[in-house]
């Protein structure tokens, strides 16, 4: 029964059905733990409000993080790579053709001349 759903990859196998069952079991365990929690807890009345050193909590819309700065650290760390890579995407049609023909020339050299 298990074998029917197992995907063999030559060196191992992957069974999504077993994985889903495991996920369901884990979910039930989480549910059980959650159910044993304190029932008198209330979200209202400031219990869930953040404490920002006594300052007023800003509007949710103002502190919403938009997409642009989410991976700033990553691009900054790899700036040497990005400084070389991004300017290659010039957007000029001649360059597109040049890259295409250049790659073709390289592959022709490898396949037909060097062999």
């Amino acid at each position: 029964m298990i074998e029917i759903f197992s995907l063999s990859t030559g060196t191992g196998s992957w069974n999504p059905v077993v994985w889903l069952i495991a996920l369901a079991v884990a979910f039930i365990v989480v549910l059980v733990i959650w159910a044993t929690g304190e029932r008198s807890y209330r979200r209202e009345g400031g219990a869930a409000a953040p404490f920002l050193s006594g300052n007023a909590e800003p509007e949710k819309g103002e502190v919403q993080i938009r997409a642009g700065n989410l991976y700033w650290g990553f691009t900054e760390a790899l700036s040497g790579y990005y400084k070389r890579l991004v300017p290659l995407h010039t957007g000029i049609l001649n360059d597109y053709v040049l890259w295409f023909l250049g790659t073709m020339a390289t592959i022709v050299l490898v396949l037909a001349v060097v062999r």
Partner: protein
Amino acid sequence: MIANLPFIAVTVIALIGIVVILTRKNLVKMVMGLSLIEAAVNLFLVSLGYRNGGIAPIFTNAPAGEMVMPTVQAMTLTNIVIGIATTALLLSFVMLVYRKYGSADAGVMRRLKE
């Protein structure tokens, strides 16, 4: 040597086309370069079909002898038709780009980059 003349012409025309595409920034000229390459490919195909002493495959009043295979002519014709379609499409793109951007220059047509 004389048999290779068409292929030399093919190379020359194709090279002119490639140089035009790579060095000219005017989009109309780039489309012209593309048409030159297309013409070179057509000439190449037609030259492939040449057989010394062969007879054109037209049955009407043909002399007796070996007829050549008309496959390359069919291919060339198809490519001409396709070429007309692509050239018309690309030229209408150039017209629209010129109207919207105020220039038909590949250096100006680069709002999409990076």
